[in-house]
């Protein structure tokens, strides 16, 4: 059953029918899907959700589709991990990792938004889909389009990591490299959407696309046992996911599915691209755009369209922001891998590094529940880890050489333990 009412401008509240739409005609404000929560209350329940499929479509009643899901049938419902080893290392009591590095089929949070956007594209009757992407979105659009039999055009900055190129090209989309950064790509895409009758998921399907990001938040709440984390740290690129995780929390509160524990939201950005965090730290409502310079390319968006709403939600929720250097990002990637066995991309390293800073500065108290949102997979960006590890030894296939090597390793371990103890 659909509880969708209309599209509504987030600025002037003008209403529009459910249609492909980029922005409000009056003020260019973003339009958002409005739901009838009165009607949904008592009908969308813990039981109705728990009875759904083990995918993001268990939240179908709170997503803007009319019929059955047509794309991403297995996307979402990624693990929420109670990260006790990492918590011990950081000196906090209750720490969770929401791990979208395992999302299906392309290992990032984007499989959520694309599942909803492509279902909507099919409902609207489009035969061609596209996106402006820093990589992850391109992977997801290309994969879901291949599976759904749609033609795909993906527009990307010219300097993406090689691993990211392979991860999209394999699905057979038309890939267009554009000289410039993501913001240049984005601008071109908004002009493309103006001219061609295509479903550009983050342009004219944006109102539907962004709703898919709520499922990241729904899952956190359900997987915590129908509770909200007191503090949630989310990476900020274009600014889609943070306000939507917040919207997810608020919808569950409104529907009486979780208690309102006043969840606080925290924005994480790379120091080389932190327009939103700067505005939060300086107490400004508007951010100044930047030219990105960071290894965290998947979140290198200097002109985040929804940045304004990130600032607003962070402030209203009582949260804050932090940014981290490339070196801190790499350290955090290694820390997460070493303590929890999760390999994330630099965006995830950024989020964890910023969470650590917020904990160390006392912004996030050590004795309250914390969730760190990991949105992408490290195997896509192995280049950034080059030179991070000691050389791998090579031996002949002889047992004596292997035993000698093990003895050396044990000796080294002993020495380093002694030096720690002394």
């Amino acid at each position, binding site marked *: 059953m659909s509880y969708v009412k209309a599209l509504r401008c987030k600025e002037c509240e003008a209403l529009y029918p459910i249609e492909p739409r980029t922005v409000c005609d009056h003020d260019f404000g*973003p339009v958002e899907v409005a739901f009838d929560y009165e009607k949904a209350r008592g009908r969308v329940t813990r039981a109705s959700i728990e009875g759904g499929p083990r995918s993001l479509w268990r939240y179908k009643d709170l997503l803007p589709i009319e019929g059955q899901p047509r794309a991403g049938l297995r996307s979402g419902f990624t693990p929420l991990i109670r990260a006790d080893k990492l918590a011990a290392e950081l000196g906090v009591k209750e720490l969770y990792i929401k791990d979208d590095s395992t999302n299906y089929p392309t290992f990032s949070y984007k499989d959520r938004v694309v599942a909803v956007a492509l279902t909507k594209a099919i409902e609207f009757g489009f035969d061609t889909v596209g996106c402006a992407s820093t990589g992850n979105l391109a992977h997801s659009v290309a994969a879901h389009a291949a599976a759904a039999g749609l033609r795909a055009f993906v527009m990307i900055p010219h300097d993406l990591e090689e691993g990211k190129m392979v991860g999209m090209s394999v699905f057979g989309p038309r890939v267009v490299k554009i000289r410039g950064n993501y913001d240049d790509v984005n601008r071109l895409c908004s*002009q493309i959407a103006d001219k061609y009758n295509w479903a550009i998921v983050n342009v004219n399907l944006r109102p539907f696309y962004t709703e898919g990001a709520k499922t990241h938040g729904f899952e956190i709440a359900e997987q915590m046992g129908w509770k909200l984390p007191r503090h949630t740290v989310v990476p900020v690129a274009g600014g889609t996911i943070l306000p939507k995780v917040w919207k997810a929390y608020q919808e569950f509160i409104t529907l009486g599915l979780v208690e309102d524990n006043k969840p606080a939201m925290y924005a994480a950005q790379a120091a080389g691209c932190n327009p939103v965090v700067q505005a939060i730290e300086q107490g400004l409502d508007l951010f100044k755009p930047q030219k990105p310079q960071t290894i965290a390319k998947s979140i290198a968006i200097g002109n985040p369209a929804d940045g*304004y709403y990130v600032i607003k939600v962070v402030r209203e929720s009582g949260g804050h922001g932090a940014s981290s250097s490339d070196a801190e990002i790499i350290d955090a990637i290694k820390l997460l891998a070493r303590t929890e066995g999760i390999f994330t991309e630099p965006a995830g390293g950024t989020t964890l590094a910023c969470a650590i800073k917020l904990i160390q500065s006392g912004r996030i108290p050590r004795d309250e529940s914390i969730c760190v949102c990991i949105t992408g997979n490290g195997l896509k960006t192995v280049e950034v880890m080059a030179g991070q590890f000691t050389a791998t030894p090579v031996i002949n296939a002889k047992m004596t050489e292997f035993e000698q090597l093990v003895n050396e390793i044990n000796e080294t371990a002993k020495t380093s333990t002694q030096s720690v103890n002394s």
Partner: protein
Amino acid sequence: MPTTANTVTIRIPTALRPQAGGNDVVSFSGASIREVLGGLTTQYPELGKRLFKTQDELNRFINVYVNDEDIRFLDNLDTAVKPGDEVSIVPAIAGG
């Protein structure tokens, strides 16, 4: 129209074309973005209401580019323009 001023072209996005006489490209004169957009909004007042929040402040969701550079990296509304420059008005959009 001042005779010494420069003529630049302005690309109008779909959403604003009804307020710009249906045109996708228009030409106006001026030495700065402020002057050029001033000419535009004098001729098309309804368009002006959508572009500007106040006389000195563009609507938050409007991005203006001069030859592919966001004017917020230049001198904002005081950014100088010269003959043949292309100004684009583009709504902000999200992604990643």
